[in-house]
């Protein structure tokens, strides 16, 4: 891993009123560029049972926490299909890998938008969880920012859980 210092964040970087729209923008850009897909807000009440695939990316350094994205199996397969430009029938375990990489790119894109944070925050290798019967907790959790998009008529959760 690259050595880094835990230099305090510049004041502008901790103005969290802008973080929700920045997280939303970060996800939109990744889907727009890598999947040629425009994300829209999910207007209906989202059932958590529709999110059986979760990708987690840890953040360490000046920004500590976990970024996760969650969707159902079919959505994950469609994401892989769109990223790879291949028919959905040919997508196998690529859907796990694709979801992890999307989470990684959203996290990287998000931290890059926070002035001064990029140099002081590192990302973990993604972790994938399947199933809905679990509860993930980030120790020392403080704020949670969550955006729910519609992807292929199903909810797609993008969540940033921050440790204070």
């Amino acid at each position, binding site marked *: *891993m*690259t050595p*880094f210092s835990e230099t305090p964040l510049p004041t502008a970087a901790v103005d969290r009123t802008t973080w929700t729209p920045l997280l939303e923008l970060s996800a939109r*850009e*990744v889907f727009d*560029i*890598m999947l040629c897909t425009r994300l829209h807000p999910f207007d209906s009440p989202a059932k958590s049972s529709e999110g059986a695939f979760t990708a987690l990316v840890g953040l360490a350094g000046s920004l500590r926490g976990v970024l996760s994205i969650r969707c159902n199996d079919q959505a994950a397969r469609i994401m*892989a299909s769109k*990223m*790879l*430009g291949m028919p959905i029938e040919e997508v196998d375990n*690529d859907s796990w*890998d*694709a979801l*992890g*990489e999307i989470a*990684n*790119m959203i*996290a*990287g*894109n998000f*931290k*890059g938008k926070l002035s001064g944070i*990029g*140099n002081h*925050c*590192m*990302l973990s*290798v993604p972790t994938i969880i399947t199933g809905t019967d679990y509860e993930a907790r980030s120790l020392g959790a403080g704020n949670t920012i969550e955006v729910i998009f519609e992807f292929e008529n199903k909810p797609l959760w993008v969540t940033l859980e921050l440790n204070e």
Partner: protein
Amino acid sequence: MSQIRALIVDDSSVMRKIVERSLRQAGLELAVTEAGNGAEALGLLDANPVDLILSDINMPVMDGLEFVRQLQTVDKLRGIPVVMITTEGSESNVVQALSLGAKGYIRKPFTPDQVKEHVLPVLGL
């Protein structure tokens, strides 16, 4: 254009496929070798000479920065152009990668055009 022997290093197989597709879309005729981390890549390079390396930074076992650092210690590998492709787009990582010998830097998410724009000049094309 002659065939380019490219080594793509990324722990994500999906990303390796996307990078390969982007290189082909840039008009390159390719013979591709893949590795999931820097250590695996170094092992492959011993027996498989390449003309171009594209490497992620954030990988298990051996990250991309250490991989580039080790490339520079081997005479026959030192001259291979390396382009980093990563979400770790922080300025310090860019400076470090370039100072270690990388010739270019592409930040994820990327378009095929961005891959073309950064890779072709490195190959003198």
